[in-house]
């Protein structure tokens, strides 16, 4: 038994008066349906007597059943002495038998359940495992397309010496170029600025030039959302 069973006391292996009575029936290999329950009175009393330290709240239940069994026994021995209406008041043998039968079924079921539990053959459900719910529904073809795109981007003619783009492109020249473009068109996108020479070095130089122009308040930069194209706008004279 795991955990406290608290105030419920199991007396010498008996879970209650009915349990003890059923035990007697089974011990004596009697059939609940045919046995005269009153005949068990002596054996029942003997077993109750043998139980030491009966807890107070259980005693009455044991004794109530014992007295009922004694009554049933007395009635079978001296049927004429007991008026009929009095018998109706007490629990009849048939009622007790029905209760015992019901209890026998419960105990059989409890045993069957206990056997199942002991066999360890149980089911397990899935806990789910991903409480934050990872994203789903990704388009694998979109992923492949993105890969294709970056491959195309990466395989474009590259400037020699990716490490030192400044040697090939002049930030000053590029700044002047961009200044001329916005002076003429008012606004241009970053993508457009890159399209003339789509290399990494060119992009870096263009970006630095833009930062410089922004710092000098020549242009305003706008980006509607992260990774959206950058819009370069000529700043209006104050």
């Amino acid at each position: 038994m795991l955990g406290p069973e608290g105030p419920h006391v199991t007396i010498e292996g008996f879970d209650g008066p009915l349990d003890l009575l059923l035990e007697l029936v089974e011990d004596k290999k009697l059939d609940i349906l045919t046995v005269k329950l009153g005949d068990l009175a002596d054996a029942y009393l003997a077993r109750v007597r043998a139980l030491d330290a009966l807890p107070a709240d259980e005693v009455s239940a044991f004794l109530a059943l014992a007295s009922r069994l004694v009554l049933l026994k007395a009635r079978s021995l001296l049927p004429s002495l007991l008026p009929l209406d009095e018998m109706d008041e007490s629990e009849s043998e048939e009622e007790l038998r029905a209760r015992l039968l019901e209890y026998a079924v419960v105990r059989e079921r409890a045993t069957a359940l206990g056997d199942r539990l002991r066999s360890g053959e149980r089911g397990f459900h899935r806990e789910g495992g991903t409480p934050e719910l990872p994203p789903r529904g990704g388009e694998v073809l979109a992923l492949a397309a993105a890969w294709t795109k970056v491959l195309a981007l990466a395989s474009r003619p590259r400037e020699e010496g990716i490490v030192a783009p400044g040697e090939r492109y002049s930030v000053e020249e590029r700044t002047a170029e961009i200044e001329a473009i916005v002076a003429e068109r008012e606004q241009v996108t970053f993508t457009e600025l890159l399209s003339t020479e789509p290399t990494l070095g060119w992009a870096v130089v263009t970006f630095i030039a833009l930062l410089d122009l922004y710092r000098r308040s020549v242009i305003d930069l706008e980006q509607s959302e992260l990774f959206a194209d950058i819009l370069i706008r000529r700043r209006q004279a104050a």
Partner: protein
Amino acid sequence: MRSGLANAVESVLFVAEKPVSRAELARVVGATPKQVDNALAELSTSYQGTGLRLAHDGDDWQLVTAPEHAAHVAAYLGADRLRVSPASLETLAIVAYRQPATRAEVEAIRGVNCDQTIYTLMQRRLIEERGRREAPGRPILYGTTWEFLECFGLSSLDELPRALTPEGVIPGLGEPVGDTRA
């Protein structure tokens, strides 16, 4: 060959972290409840001889592992075996076969006070409250849980082991339900 609907239901039950009702299944797979019933029956059959089972408690459905592989799953999860005292098992048996049942009914059958065993079973989540009976005193009704089905390796209450002894009808307790199930 399984139907697409059965597979859709399977996918949903697989990701579900709790039992899914028939109505909810119908909604998410875009089918009628009747079609879902067929899909569930189809799945249930196809899980025979596999490591999975389709379990249900009323109209709620859940995928669980097959009881015969419990030892391996327990080894993986490091799960302890559940122990229940004989006294608690009796109370559990009464609740399981007669549910919903009140404490008074359980005590009438067992002939002893069942406060503690009911408390213990509630703590282990093998039984739970199921509202109250519309009767004097409005006594609490108890029924078994999903945990109960899982712990005992049952796919549904229909699989409760049957008793061999014929069951008596106790006056005042109404018809027992256990052995009249299909």
